[in-house]
Structure formats: structure tokens, C-alpha cells
């Protein structure tokens, strides 16, 4: 079953003087249920804009996005989002951050508690239920971010460079943790990154975007078993191939339309 379908998506931002800025052009992609797709591209290629449109935070100029066959017309609990800067509510404890979506959907308190406890356990935050975000490290904050997005039981998990603000070691650890969580929950994941290494480590399918206006340049399916060995020859070879693809984009630079 196709969980997410993006059809002929166009996004342009109106500008007074220079004419409209074409951020995304003719972007089409189908994502299978349970698939882990990484979207990789040079900075400013519209990756985040794409994700925001899937989340329903921005409206497409043209084209259509469908989640489980339903057209996206705004934000909804069938999609969960994880932000690079965590975006946790500083006045809420870990548990109450995770329960935010459930409160809005008027889930009963006992049920909320059960669900939040489950996800606290899943992301490895047991013992930190009553901590406030400022008491947590970056990696732990993002664990809250992931649990909070999952608590609504979304069909699709949208991740916008979720580990971009973390140090290299924490980042590697969080990638492994994410794969474990993904295996347990079997969510469809759209993961945006500019790290080739990260994408090669995580993805079932790796989508490379062009510079502005962003569209699909190349798609690499990666069928290797997980956990993947970063030190292996195959991994290095794939990483190199993708780097070459990306670099040709960065050099050619963005075009105005």
C-alpha cells in the first residue's frame, strides 16, 4: 500500500521585485507503507519546504499530496513531525510534552498516561518522565521529540534534519536508536538530511534533490541489511557515488526561474 503519494508538486513564493521564487518544481514520489525514505539535497533546495507541505504547514502552489489516499489539506494527526531544533514546550515535562497531541484529541487521562508511558519506554527515557526540557541533553530532547510525534500514532513520520543539532557521537547513537524504534513501530518515515553518511546508514530509498527549483535528481534504493557497517567497502563506494551526484548539484548552483 502506498502511504504517501506526492504528485507533480510545485511550490513558488511570491516576491515583489525579482519575480516569484520557484522553490520546488514537478516533484513526484510514492512511498510504500513502512518504508524509510531519506531526502538528500544541497542547502536551499527546498527539502524543508517539501516536508512542511507534507505536514500541511504550507500549501502547495500546484500538485497534490496524499496520505493513505487522502489529500492533505492542512496539519493532521495522521502525520507526525520531528524538528531539528526539537521544538519542545519548555514549560511541559517530558511526559506532558509527549501527551500534548493526545490532550488535544481529548484522549482520557488514564489512556494518555498509558500511551505516554509506552513511548517513554520505547525511546529510552524511563526515569525522566517529570524532567523539563532544559534538564535534558540534546539527544534526550530529540528522544522526546520522536516520542511526542509517535504518541499520536501517525501513519507517516516526518523528520526534518532531526539530528542536525547533535554532536557526531550522539548523532550516530540516535541513528541506531531511530532504526530500532522504526523496526518496532513500522512507521513510514520521510527523513530529511544533508548528511550523505546518515542517509546511507538509514534509508531504504535515498532521494537526491537538485538545487532550486528542487526536484528529484536521482533515486537510490538501498537494500542492504541493517545495521549497516559504515567501515565496509560497499558503504564507502555508495557514499562516494552519492557525494559525486550531490557535488555536481552544488557546483552548478541554484537557478532562478
Amino acid at each position, binding site marked *: 500500500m502506498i502511504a504517501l503519494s506526492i504528485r507533480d508538486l510545485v511550490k513558488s513564493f511570491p516576491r515583489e521585485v525579482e519575480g516569484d521564487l520557484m522553490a520546488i518544481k514537478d516533484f513526484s514520489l510514492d512511498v510504500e507503507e513502512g518504508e524509510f525514505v531519506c531526502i538528500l539535497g544541497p542547502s536551499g533546495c527546498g527539502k524543508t519546504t517539501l516536508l*512542511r507541505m507534507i*505536514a*500541511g*504547514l504550507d500549501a502547495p502552489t500546484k500538485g497534490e499530496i496524499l496520505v493513505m489516499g487522502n489529500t492533505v489539506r492542512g*496539519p*493532521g*494527526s495522521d*502525520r*507526525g*513531525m520531528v*524538528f531539528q*531544533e526539537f*521544538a*519542545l*514546550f*519548555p*514549560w*511541559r*515535562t517530558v511526559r506532558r510534552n509527549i501527551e*500534548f*497531541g493526545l*490532550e*488535544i*484529541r481529548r484522549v482520557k487521562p488514564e489512556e494518555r498516561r498509558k500511551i505516554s508511558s509506552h513511548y517513554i519506554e520505547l525511546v529510552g527515557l524511563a526515569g525522566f518522565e517529570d524532567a*523539563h*526540557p*532544559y534538564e535534558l541533553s540534546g539527544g534526550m530532547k530529540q528522544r522526546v521529540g520522536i516520542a*511526542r*510525534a509517535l504518541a*499520536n500514532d501517525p501513519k507517516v513520520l*516526518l523528520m526534518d534534519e532531526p539530528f542536525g543539532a547533535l554532536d557526531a557521537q550522539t548523532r550516530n547513537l540516535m541513528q541506531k536508536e531511530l532504526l530500532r524504534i522504526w523496526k518496532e513501530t513500522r512507521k513510514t518515515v520521510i527523513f530529511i538530511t544533508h548528511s550523505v553518511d546518515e542517509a546511507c546508514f538509514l534509508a531504504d530509498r535515498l532521494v537526491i534533490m537538485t538545487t532550486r527549483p528542487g526536484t528529484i535528481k536521482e533515486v537510490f534504493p538501498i537494500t542492504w541489511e541493517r545495521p549497516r557497517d559504515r567501515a565496509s567497502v560497499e558503504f564507502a563506494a555508495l557514499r562516494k557515488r552519492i557525494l559525486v551526484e550531490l557535488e555536481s548539484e552544488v557546483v552548478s548552483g541554484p537557478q532562478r526561474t
Partner: protein
Amino acid sequence: MPIISMRRLKGRIRLSGKDTLIKLLVGAVALVLFLVAWQLFADSANTEYLPTPIEVLNAFVDSFSTKDPSSGVTMGKSIESSLSRFILGTFLAIGLAIPLGLAMGFFPLANAFGKPLIEIFRPIPPIAWVPFLFIVAGVIWGPVITIFLGVFFPVLSNVMFGASSVEPQLIDAAKTMGARKPTLFMRVVMPYTIPYLMTGIRIGLGIGWMCIVAAEMIGTRGGGVGAFILNNANIGRYDYMFAGMVMIAILGIVTVESASYIERRVSRWMGAKR
């Protein structure tokens, strides 16, 4: 310009126990030096206008048991009058500034509507209103409204600033979890604004005390500590006049410090410590 809380930043610099003790001692030394200098100066000047600290202390203690000859009430009664007006004015100001500040901070149209009015009235010092207020509002409500004006604007500015500075990511995050406008307002904008509100209240209370003293001095028939000071000056009881000033200082310190304490507690409870 909105007033931003520096206290939240300062809260991070925690002194060790020993440092705190030394600072307290140095502060105490300054206080003692001041009292000694005052005593010496008053002794040498030998004028009735400047009583010694001991005389002021005596008058202060005495003022609670004896009635003020010009107004016929004790200090306790004066404090009661001032405090009740202060509390009433403060509550009215906070009660009105919160919804207005939230609306003007969050809804651009409310801001466009309210801003010109606010900007016209804000620069007028509350005390400038006093003569007008005494004519139309009388000796009781005149000071209340003066305090209202003193507290209202700092609270409004801070709440407005808080509501307009909510991180867009928090709004986005709430939206992706299914929050619509009313929920966003109740569960994101309002809690985000609470630390700003507390800062506004603390600043407003400080200004409020200045306002009430000035207001009570212009309309002394209404009583209060401000009237107590002026009445005693008029009849030449300068030690009592100073006692009134000391009382104002104490009341001011107590209210502002308790507001600061609550502000710090709330900030911590809200997780604003970063």
C-alpha cells in the same frame, strides 16, 4: 520598547555560599555606614528638618500607637488605606492588561487597532493624570486609577511582547499534533507568555508604589501613607514625615521582592531556565 526580563538571565549566575555571605556582609557594612553618616550629619546640622535615625525610629514605632494629629488616624490605618488602593488598582490593571496584551501580541488586527491608542497614552506619566483624576474620580478612586495606570502599561507591554515572540516552531509543532487556533492560544501562546507577565507585574508594582504616594499627596483628604508624609511635613513633625518615608520603602521592598520571588518560582516551574 518592550521590557525584557534580565532576571531570567541573571538567575543562571549562582554564587557559592561563601560568596553570598561576603556580599551580604559588605551590604550590611554599607547600611551601617549610611546610618552613622546620617546620625553625624543630623547632629552637626542641628536642624529640625533633619531628624536623626534614632528619632525617626522612635517616631516610626510611635506612629502605630498614636493618632496623627492632622488626619486623626494611626499609621496602621494609613497603611490599610494605601494597601487596599494599591491592591485594587494592581488587580484591575493586571486583569485588563492580560487579555489586551495577549490579543495585541497574537492577533495582528488587534495590534493595529490598539497600538495607536496605547502609544498615545503610554508616555504620559501616571502622576500627570492625578489632578484630573481627583476632580472626576475623587480621593479614593483617584489614587486607585493612578496605580492602575502605573501597573497597566508595563504588564501590557510585557504580555504583548511575550505573546508576539512565541517561537514559530512551537506553533508549528502544536499544529502538526492537531492544534487549531483556540487550542494554540490556550496551550501554547498563554503558557509561553506567563514568565513575561510575571516580569511585567514586578516592574509594574515598583512603578505603582511611586504613583500611589504621589497621588495621596495631592489629595490628602483620602488618607494613606502618602498623605501621612505630607500632613506631618505641613505641621512640622519631620521625624514622623521620615517615618512615613521609611514605611513606603518597607512596603515597596516587600511587594517588589515578593513579586520577584514569585517570578523566579514561576520561571523555574515553567521550565524557562535554559
